């Protein structure tokens, strides 16, 4: 490597560092505001730095009764939806990968089409349907419609297609039934894909806003994002507390990302790479 290349590399490094600062600044700002008592207005340079740090905002937020409820709602919904997807995407993906049946092409096309449909356009009919089912403002509406998703089916189908078939055939000769083959033989082999799926689904549902927002109404059914978005409504904005609550909402995702970066990235790019 010539000295010129070396300099170029370090210039590039500094540029990337500068961009990184820009990408992470809002995150820094959120945490900084959450740790102070002040409004967070910027009148001079020293206001950009944290001062008078306190964790009192977090204590206030945690000890307020509705917040704990919002946090638990988010957790319950994300966990059940994730569990549902693990079982159902595996089942459907397996059928697409290994079985022949009538209308297979049509049904698989429906998976692709739902993936491409702008979901926001069905908010009105979905609202009416959920009301008619009597699910409005219940956990059912937050969980059941989302327990299987097209991207997950796609992901599992791709993965199972590339698995060797011999193990399944051997198990069948030994007299294992279809369910036993799927859950005892195939499922353990799918662990890497299921991990990608679980994290992906958890993230999406933890952050989900629009559907939980339009399909619930009472305060006790709110998930964290819904509660945060509606918080502004009923009082003048108390930024330090709001930012503390926002940080708590963002933190689980960031922690998951730190540990499962590879799975998260492959889950989010999986749909794209097959094109």
């Amino acid at each position, binding site marked *: 490597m010539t000295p010129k290349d070396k300099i170029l590399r370090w210039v590039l490094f500094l540029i990337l560092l500068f961009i990184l600062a820009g990408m992470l600044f809002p995150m820094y*700002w959120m945490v900084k505001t959450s740790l102070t008592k002040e409004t967070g207005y910027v009148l001079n340079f020293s206001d950009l730095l944290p001062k008078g740090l306190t964790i009192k905002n977090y204590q206030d937020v945690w000890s307020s009764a509705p917040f704990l409820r919002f946090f638990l709602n988010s957790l319950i919904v994300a966990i059940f939806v994730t569990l549902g997807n693990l079982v159902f995407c595996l089942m459907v993906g397996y059928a697409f990968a290994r079985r022949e049946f009538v209308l297979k092409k049509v049904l698989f096309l429906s998976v692709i089409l739902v993936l491409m449909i702008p979901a926001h356009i069905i908010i009105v009919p*979905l609202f009416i349907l959920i009301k008619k089912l009597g699910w409005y403002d219940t956990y059912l509406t937050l969980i059941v419609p989302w327990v299987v998703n097209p991207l997950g089916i796609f992901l599992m189908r791709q993965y199972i297609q590339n698995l060797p078939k011999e193990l399944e055939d051997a198990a069948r000769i030994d007299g294992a039934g279809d369910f036993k083959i799927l859950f005892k033989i195939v499922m353990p082999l799918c662990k890497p894909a299921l991990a990608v799926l679980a994290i992906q689904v958890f993230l999406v549902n933890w952050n989900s*806003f*629009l559907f939980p927002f339009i399909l619930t109404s009472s305060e006790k059914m709110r998930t964290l994002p819904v509660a*945060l978005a509606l918080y502004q409504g009923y009082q003048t904005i108390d930024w330090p507390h709001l930012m503390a609550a926002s940080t708590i909402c963002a933190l689980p995702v960031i922690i998951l990302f730190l540990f499962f970066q590879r799975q998260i990235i492959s889950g989010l790019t999986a749909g794209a790479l097959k094109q």
Partner: protein
Amino acid sequence: MPKPKTTFIFLLPWIIILLLFWLFPLIYSFILSFAKYSILTGEVEWIGLANYFKLLQDPDFWIALKNTSFFVLGTIPFTTILALVLAILVNQKIPLRGFFRAGYFVPSITSLVVIALVFTHLYARDGYFDFLFKLLNLSSPEKGFLFSEKTALLSIMLMDVWVSVGYYMLLFLAALQAVPLELYEISDTFGANFWQKFRFVTLPHLKPMFLFVILINTIKSFQIFIEVFVMTKGGPLNSTLTMVYLVYEQGLHKFNFGYASAIAYCLFFIIMVFSLLQMKAFGLGKGIED
């Protein structure tokens, strides 16, 4: 032999969800767009194309369409090009490049509600952006960026580019890494410079990813809602009113189900036309089935 019955059971979860929560709402919404639905009595009155005619004369619809189009056309070129540039940069041999890739991606996985709240704070009067503008001797809106008709939509657009660029960077990065290295080696033997290699080796290989990135970003951007709901509620003076926000307002605030469905279907139609045009422009369209 595998039993046909179990095949059906395995498929059942998707069949139920597809029929009940996708197909039914899509069809029901289409039917509703030709009707007036009374929420009190549950009565449906057929009014033909009246909702669609009403829509053509509704100034809010045209404002929403204009704002949404401006948002889509104004963000996608920036997001796409920035994402590509970032992907090329983090694909070079640089210390800590994995760290940069991860860092740029963090906004994409954070809740959009949280991000919109943080930016509301940053855009406020005497907030961070206000400070930057004053520092550069630029005039900033008096009540804050989100409270001025001139700057509200632009502020949301800037935030949107910032949020989404990391995700598309990763997509481009995946495509870049799939370019066969031998092609670069061959170009080197011909003495090709960086730009020639980029133009004749990299770009042709990125074409399918370009289409995909623009396509999904178009579908996503036309549906912008959360940012508007959290930051401006469509204001000030409708300057950030978007199509989905209008659907929400008409359908779930004023309970004009029929009219809201007509708007939603218009949006659906627009997105479909855009998507097909893009596929055509890139000479693709096949290759979706496998």
